[in-house]
């Protein structure tokens, strides 16, 4: 759907972004990309390419890790957002679901969801959205009073997504939702991502090692390596692309490592 539109102003735009860690390590080297409102955009690339760094640059979480956007610009809804603190960005509608699930293990499912809605104060709306979460993820409803640390990998990933929904964001940044999740559950999670995109009109920027599942639901895709864009296109075209097929559609980390040699040079 997004590909068919005639270039409306994108929801999110990165323009020649450079990111440096610890004042010395250059990780993103002039990365540009744009995410149209309402779309699902996949960001693919091998280990260490800078995918997570890209998401952290957008959500403001770089700071806590000693990283900094040193040049270029990041715009959300037409306004510069690079350098803003994460709490402002969450309020503006950007929610980052970090790599590796990261649920609050010592809080219950329900309390985790409440933390997702931390920046909001409309109680009726929060209650509605909580019910909506349990609709998308019935298992969370059944376990609402359990400590999140006792959930399975897939359930924790669902909780991390539910937490994002509670903030009612316009854009969700998803970092490897398939990581550590059983293959069957991965399929289910990606079906739900598609549904969330369609029903909630939430835009998704999706980082994945598992290119097959990501391109199956995405409208558009980018491939980055060593902090640079090496390929971009409609998801369907990328899925059919020879280099992408060789490099990523094996899925998993080994394929990722092979990609490093095949796409650079």
């Amino acid at each position: 759907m997004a590909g068919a539109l005639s270039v409306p102003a994108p929801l999110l735009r990165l323009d020649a972004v450079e990111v440096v860690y610890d004042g010395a390590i250059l990780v993103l080297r002039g990365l540009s990309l744009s995410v149209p409102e309402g779309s699902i955009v996949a960001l693919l690339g091998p280990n260490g390419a800078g995918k997570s760094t890209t998401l952290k640059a957008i959500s403001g979480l770089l700071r806590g890790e000693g990283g900094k956007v040193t040049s270029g610009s990041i715009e959300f809804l037409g306004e510069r957002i690079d350098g803003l603190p994460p709490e402002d960005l969450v309020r503006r509608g950007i929610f980052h679901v970090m790599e590796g699930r990261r649920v609050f293990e010592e809080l219950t499912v329900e309390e985790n969801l409440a933390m997702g809605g931390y920046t909001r104060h409309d109680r009726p709306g929060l209650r509605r959205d909580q019910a909506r979460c349990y609709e998308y993820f019935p298992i969370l409803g059944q376990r609402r009073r359990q400590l999140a640390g006792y959930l399975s990998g897939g359930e924790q990933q669902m909780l991390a997504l539910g937490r994002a929904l509670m903030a009612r964001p316009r854009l969700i940044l998803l970092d490897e939702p398939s990581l550590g999740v059983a293959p069957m559950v991965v399929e289910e999670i990606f079906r739900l991502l598609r549904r969330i995109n369609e029903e909630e009109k939430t835009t998704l920027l999706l980082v994945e090692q598992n290119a097959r599942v990501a391109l199956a639901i995405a409208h558009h895709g980018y491939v980055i390596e060593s902090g640079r864009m090496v390929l971009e296109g409609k998801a369907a075209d990328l899925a059919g692309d020879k280099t992408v097929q060789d490099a990523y559609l094996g899925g998993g980390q080994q394929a990722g490592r092979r990609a490093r040699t095949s796409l650079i040079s």
Partner: protein
Amino acid sequence: MELFLQLLLNGLVVGGIYALVALGFVIIYKSSGLLNFAQGEFLMLGAYVCLAILEETRVPFVAAFLLTLVFSVALGLLLERVVLRPLLGQPLISVIMVTLGLSSVLKAVVQALWGSHTRPFPPVFATEPVMLGPLPVSQGYLWSLGCVALLLVLLTLFFRFTRLGLAMRATAFSQQVALSMGIPVRRIFALSWSIAAAVSAAGGMLLGAMRGGVDGSLAFYGLKVIPVVILGGMDSISGAIAGGLIIGVLENFSGGYLDPLVGGGAKDVAPFVALVLILMVKPHGLFGTAHARRV
């Protein structure tokens, strides 16, 4: 039997104060990973501020108590802002040096303002003891126990049921993840300093009222934080409470039963002996987690 009960009660009263001080230490450590060695000075300062309010305004003790808590909350916010915020991300040793420095500064300020001699605390509790069965018990002890219990219950409810309390626990789990939900982590740190200052001050005020006087030695209660949190676990709130009570009771039992035999000193040594024994069995303390985070 009567001696036993008396020692137990004394132990619980003192232990309750230890628990308050240790609780402040644990709350700061959990939320920001900083070790605060000025807890004892918070306690002392609380007692002096409360006394000053009582002397200047003649309001009832309850009002002075609450005003002092408000003062401590403000102090916590201020300290976090001017002293501790610049320290985030600094090496542990400089953080420790700064909180040690803070403790000296607070001591010096108290001395400069109020001198170093013992100042009498106006009588707060009725002096005649009440009989608990065969045991005559000072009313101050009962009030102190009640107050400590109330504070502990309120704090537990705060951490369990309020949005802010949950956000503090979320931040303790992971600052980055808390930030990613828009939780203002800096403000959470400041809040942890406020709570730490307030609970310690409460301990100081109760001590002042029970003893009938305040002086610089109140700061020594801060030294008990170390054995208590090692016993209870650095990152456990219930551990701080249990550890405080256990150390308080142990001290009194060894003081009551062993000191007459060994000629004194057991009171100070016994808790450490117990500590070593417990750590041999449970190296992370009674309630601590195996990998205390950060540090």
